[in-house]
């Protein structure tokens, strides 16, 4: 495959629309995410942000528009295939394998990196053991990174809420994604935890070359870390720009505060 030109963005969404029966939930949304960039999608409740996420990650098949990742159209591709291309997401309501341990959560996420050959596993061949060890090492690395190593053998469902959020991000990172999609990662966190999350997201971008697409209501977080912001209102794109441009945009202010 030819290397994508540096000018080409990592993720390019054009004219995205999603219709449920008579309801047009998303209408003509466009956004770009470049390599090593944090892009936030904001908008009032019910604006269709999560629906945009569900379309991009393949959980919904959009009724119209193009989604291009690394120069390849992924419209209509199955969700798990999109994830394998390197676009991995978290969920608004944390979705962990709650009866499995923390480390097992991270091992499941590496399913397609390990040796899934049944015979190799039954006989514990050297290559199988090596692959297993590698994935355990990677899991340990990311547990350290998100400060959860001491809870490695704990059931994921027994973690505190903030820890569950971090585990969900770690679980995405062990798949070695190119684009990480976070759906309201700061929801339910206290200010200290939000600050840690802020640092973690920036580090993912700076140290691991991951691009990030973010849905978030916490304006402090969004304005602080975003390279660009896309505003959606009632399913339609309202504005796009840098945090400063968005902050001063009269349309955005109107959408959030109503007619003043």
């Amino acid at each position, binding site marked *: 495959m030819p290397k994508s030109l540096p000018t080409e963005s990592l993720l390019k969404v054009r004219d995205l629309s999603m219709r449920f029966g008579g309801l047009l939930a998303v209408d003509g949304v466009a956004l770009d995410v470049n390599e090593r960039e944090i892009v936030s999608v904001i908008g009032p409740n019910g604006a269709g942000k999560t629906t945009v996420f569900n379309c991009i990650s393949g959980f919904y098949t959009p009724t119209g528009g193009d989604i291009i990742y690394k120069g390849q159209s992924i419209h209509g591709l199955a969700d798990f295939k999109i994830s394998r291309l390197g676009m991995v997401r978290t969920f608004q309501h944390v979705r962990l394998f709650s009866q499995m341990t923390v480390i097992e959560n991270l091992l499941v996420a590496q399913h397609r990196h390990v040796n899934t050959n049944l015979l190799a596993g039954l006989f514990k061949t050297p290559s199988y053991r090596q692959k297993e060890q590698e994935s355990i090492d990677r899991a340990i690395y990311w547990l350290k990174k998100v400060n959860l190593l001491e809870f490695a*053998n704990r059931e994921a469902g027994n973690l505190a809420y903030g820890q569950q959020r971090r585990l969900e991000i770690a679980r995405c990172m062990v798949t070695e994604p190119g684009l990480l999609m976070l759906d309201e990662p700061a929801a339910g966190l206290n200010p200290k935890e939000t600050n840690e999350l802020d640092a973690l997201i920036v580090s993912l971008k700076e140290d691991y070359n991951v691009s990030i697409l973010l849905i978030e209501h916490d304006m402090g977080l969004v304005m602080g870390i975003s390279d660009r912001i896309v505003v959606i209102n009632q399913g339609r794109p309202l504005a796009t720009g840098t945090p400063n441009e968005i902050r001063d945009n009269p349309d955005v202010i109107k959408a959030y505060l109503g007619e003043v």
Partner: protein
Amino acid sequence: MKDKFIPALIAGVATLILAFPLLGLNLVSDGLGLGIEGADTQTMIYIVLASLAVFIFQLFKENALNIAKNIPLPRRAYKPDAVVSQAQRDKNEKLFTFIIVAIALVWPFFASRGNVDLATLVLIYVMLGLGLNIVVGLAGLLDLGYVAFYAVGAYSYALLHQYFGLSFWVCLPLAGLMAASFGFVLGFPVLRLRGDYLAIVTLGFGEIIRILLNNWTHLTGGPNGIGSIPKPALFGLEFGRKAKEEGNIAFHEYFNIAYNSSYKVIFLYLLALLLVLFTIFVIRRLMRMPVGRAWEALREDEIACRSLGLNRTIIKLSAFTIGASFAGFAGAFFSAKQGFISPESFTFIESAIILAIVVLGGMGSQLGIILAAIAMTVLPELAREFQEYRMLMFGLMMVLMMIWRPQGLLPMKRRHMELTNA
């Protein structure tokens, strides 16, 4: 008390309405027509007593439930988190398993023929329970047609022997393979379905297989079944009075001892034990392998799995296929043990019994399943005079278990992998 009186009265009267027309009035053919006659006085008294019992139970339900709650039961075989480490648990289990296996090996030489035979049947159910547990307990897919794969295994051996003269040892893997292929072919299209649809489709599939076996007379012998299926031989030694296959020698002649039919029974028992140990070993390995983790993850949260790049169809299919293959092994062994099979042995009730073993054992727990298989097979034998009521009690027990202890009698703490030297 007063606010409970009316509902209790309604429940009592309802019991009377439910019981009287069917239990109290019996349909009898009188020549050309149909008549009814009242049941004997005893039955009538029972109906009234039952209604009274329901009335009184409803009246004092709260008190009764409180007593029931205080009945001590093993809630968890191990203490919660971190008190006993996984490594320690494994060690204890190894010792425990060793003792059990040693007893199981020696026991048949001292037991009666009938008991060894019964124990062999228990082992078949253990195998079926363990196999279905992969599908239901680990992967969370409700399969109501598991008996179909059991039938495929049994008929594979019977037919391969009948038409091609293949021996048990050649047919055993083939039977597993056949059952697995049936599982694959059925699973591929239907595993996309939601849980309860899957249950009904597998149920329908089980019926289809049974109807085919019943009607494809020139291949399967139809309702008459297939007979004279040979017992397995031990490295060319047969356990009958005379060796039947060419080149084989009878066991007692080879060792120059007197013929004794209990050798055959004991050999079959040991063979079943070996198959069960093999099953346990393979499944335990699978549970710790990536595919085992993926089954459990899929049961926990399918959407999260998809978001992480797991192909749910392939993973479900692997559980379905591997589960089916164990039913195939069990089926081949069953037809060898019985020497005769017919579609009668593979009805829906059989699926329900295997499912009950999995549920009773506490979905996912291997030890629980072994104990449940013993209970489900041995109890009906002990209560032979209640044979008539066996299925009635079985149905009732399934309902009560789901209400009272849906997690099974012996829910085990999940086996998990443990990080030790981090």
